[in-house]
């Protein structure tokens, strides 16, 4: 079983995060568990607002506070209890043990500092080397991500979107982190650039041996880079398994819905089957299964209580009450 995994780089247990605003309490993360081994890649899939980014930020303890409050749970990063670490140690971990690539490369670089400076900064912070060496190493990193080191002294506005994201990647990998958090790293880029950037990331991650959490709503990317997949809905992991588990033996109706909204190039006859309805209001989540209102398999039972994890194999679990009923299976399985 998952709990027995050894040598975990990341171990999140029952994480609950709320945003307590004037307008009400947003239940962003509702009991997420993540176990990730060294060197492995986990994909977090889900719609916008499902709590993926919040989860990733909590690993860095960067959930904006106020209003964000980590209500319960624990996060162990390479054995360190992130939630109870003194700030100084936390700062020592960020960018070093774990680093993050953000969604929008346009805004995630400081416009008034040169790209070189921004890379050198993280190196100088975490490695005990001189300013000069840090600069040299920052130049190396630029080359690693495919940018000539001559551009060290240029400012972000002089770079294209894809180039910026490469800079961000260089910055994230500069200190050889054990865990890389990639929050939709390619969403803001156009398709050809996406592929290049993704390729770079994949290559480098393997080269550096970092574990990675890839946050995306693009199943294609998941298929390309991930070892394991967690499907997130309304702050909960509704289905988790290896890449094969999820792609080949899809269990959850929501996962099915995600596949259904992908255009299928081989079968052009098949119409897109978008998931109907909208995500529930996070300030007012339904009592039962959060997906129930949108679920075509929904029964009266579903609205009564939140479904628990149901392990279907060593690597695969699903949260869906219908699996209490023997013989239930979703349409995709039937095909």
């Amino acid at each position, binding site marked *: 079983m998952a709990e027995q995994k050894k040598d975990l780089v990341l171990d999140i247990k029952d994480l609950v995060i709320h945003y307590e*605003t*004037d*307008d009400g309490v947003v239940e962003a993360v509702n009991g997420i568990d993540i176990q990730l081994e060294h060197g492995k890649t986990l994909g977090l899939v889900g719609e916008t607002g499902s709590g993926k980014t919040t989860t990733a930020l909590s690993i860095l303890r960067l959930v904006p506070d*106020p*209003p964000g409050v980590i209500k319960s749970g624990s996060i162990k990063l390479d054995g360190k209890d992130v939630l109870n670490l003194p700030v100084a140690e936390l700062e020592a971990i960020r960018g070093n043990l774990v680093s993050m690539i953000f969604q929008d490369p346009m805004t995630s670089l400081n416009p008034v500092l040169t790209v070189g400076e921004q890379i050198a900064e993280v190196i100088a912070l975490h490695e005990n080397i001189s300013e000069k060496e840090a600069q040299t190493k920052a130049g190396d990193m630029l080359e690693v991500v495919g940018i000539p080191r001559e551009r060290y002294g240029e400012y972000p506005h002089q770079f294209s979107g894809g180039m910026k994201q490469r800079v961000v990647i260089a910055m994230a990998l500069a200190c050889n982190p054990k865990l890389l958090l990639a929050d939709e790293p390619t969403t803001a880029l156009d398709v050809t650039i996406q592929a290049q950037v993704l390729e770079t990331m994949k290559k480098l991650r393997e080269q550096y041996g970092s574990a990675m959490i890839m946050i995306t709503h693009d199943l294609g990317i998941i298929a390309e880079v991930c070892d394991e997949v967690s499907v997130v809905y309304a702050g909960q992991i509704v289905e988790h398994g290896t890449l094969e588990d999820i792609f080949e033996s899809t269990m959850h109706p929501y996962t099915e819905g995600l596949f259904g909204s992908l255009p299928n190039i081989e079968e052009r006859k098949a119409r897109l089957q978008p998931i109907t309805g909208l995500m529930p209001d996070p300030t007012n989540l339904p009592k039962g299964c959060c997906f129930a209102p949108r679920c075509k398999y929904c029964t009266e039972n579903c609205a009564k209580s939140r479904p628990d994890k149901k392990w279907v194999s060593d690597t695969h679990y699903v949260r869906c009450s219908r699996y209490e009923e023997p013989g239930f299976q979703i349409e995709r399985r039937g095909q």
Partner: protein
Amino acid sequence: MEAAKINGAVQEGGAVKRRGQAGEIWRRLKKNKMAMAGLAVLVLLILVSIFADVLFDYNEIVIKQDTSIRLQGPSGAHWLGTDEFGRDILARLVHGSRVSLSVGVIAVSISLVIGGALGAIAGFYGGKTDNLIMRFIDILLAVPSLLLSITIVSALGPSIFNLMLAIGVSSVPSYARIVRASVLTVKDQEYVEAARCIGANNFEIIVSHIIPNCMAPIIVQVSLKVASAILSTSGLSFLGLGIKAPTPEWGAMLSGGRAYLRNAPHLTLFPGLAIIITILALNLLGDGLRDALDPKLKK
């Protein structure tokens, strides 16, 4: 036909949204303790100025001189003391709030309307219009405000409104600049393009999209400028451009007490405090409003 309908629908929607927004802003504002304190003080001041006649009779107390009790400090009979003519300072402060508050508000409104319009036009149309208006603003900025005030007041004759006009005109440039800058940042935004696509004309765009987006810097500026407007009446009345005596007005009281600052400090202290409290309240409210208006800033 079709376009008009859509347009109408949009406007309707806009109105609904705006009403909703006002409620939302108020709800956010209520949470801000400092802003509410400011609002409370302002409401109190406005009430005091409205009921000034009930509190103190104008002819019998406010302008009643009695030189036998001049320059007396605070006492039971005169809570804030008496001025150089033996008039009750509290009564004069209460009645003075009428003039001072309206001078502040009207002077600022004048400069906001003129400056805002100039700035919006300059920013919106750009090019030659912009250049022409902004050079004019530069020129206006270089003319000493005192010279402007003297000329306006003297040319139009000494009256409260002309005084307000004089004070207002001298701060036109700063509003023009702020509004222009805001317009420049807003006018190429997608939602403005969108509004244009559905057939909104320039005026509608300025009113419903650009102006609301300039609110934050304008509110900050307005709340500070009301302060300087009230203070500048004191400077102007020192030059003989103020409110006609014996009408009480805070600025004039402040400057009138200047000669007695050492020997009878209460003559300046209390009008000074009145001005300080008003300005504080106004600015706290202004800050709160700014935060409440800016959805990005919400907690």
